[in-house]
């Protein structure tokens, strides 16, 4: 069912924190420097760097340092991997209940 579970485990662990979800939401609109990421957050820079480290370890984001500026961006493949797994789960439940509903209709019509 699921071949890339360790990757997903790290991704979900990284997403379990509201600060990191906020950072990811910000990055979803485009790459940002560490100071841009830190500015709206009510936490210290070292704390921001810790969260960033967790996000990078999850593979959801990557960063690159040029001169004195570290730029952070989302990793589309890691996000797509999470999305695919989630889509499968949803499909399974919704479609099973769709089939159940269709079957109920069919047997109701058989009876009348």
């Amino acid at each position, binding site marked *: 069912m699921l071949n890339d579970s360790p990757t997903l485990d790290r991704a979900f662990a990284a*997403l379990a924190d509201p600060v990191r*979800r906020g950072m990811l939401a910000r990055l979803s609109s485009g790459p940002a420097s560490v100071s841009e990421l830190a500015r709206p957050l009510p936490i210290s820079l070292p704390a921001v760097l810790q969260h960033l480290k967790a996000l990078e370890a999850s593979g959801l984001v990557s960063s690159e340092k040029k001169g004195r500026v570290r730029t952070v961006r989302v990793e589309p493949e890691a996000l797509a991997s999470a999305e695919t797994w989630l889509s499968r789960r949803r499909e399974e439940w919704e479609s099973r209940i769709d089939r*159940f509903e269709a079957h109920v209709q069919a047997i109701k019509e058989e009876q009348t």
Partner: protein
Amino acid sequence: MNDELDLRIERTLDAPRDLVWKAWTDPEHIKRWWSPRPYETPECEIELKPGGKFFTRMTGPEGFDYSGTACILEAVPGERIVWSSTMKGGYRPNEFTDDGCNGFPFTAIHSFQDAGGGKTRYTATVMHANAKDRDAHAAMGFDDGWGTCADQLAEVARTLAAEA
């Protein structure tokens, strides 16, 4: 219902409750809707009592053959059936591998209520063991808080994948 860990799907079915119950609990009926085509459910056993076995075997293309056994925890005729993937018949625990290839732990509560006019209100509630499993489902849009956030991420992922 624990909003932190559970998800819920509700449907109003255009059929009386006794018929809906039969469709959900009779193995011959379950076999006809359990698996998505081209997959089939050649075998199904369900013992409608606490500790009863709920067994399904799914087969499909390229030799796909998967059997799963869950445990019935509650079966109130016409009203409610509760089962869990954490156990098999007789409350014996199931084993789960870390790669998730043999499923993951959850408990499903299915309830049926008269909705008037010969209709039935069907509610499926799925309870998860931990945040990862819950988030996996909630992220699909079942949850207003974190689900919304994850939906946005999923949308972003789609956009990025399309651009790539």
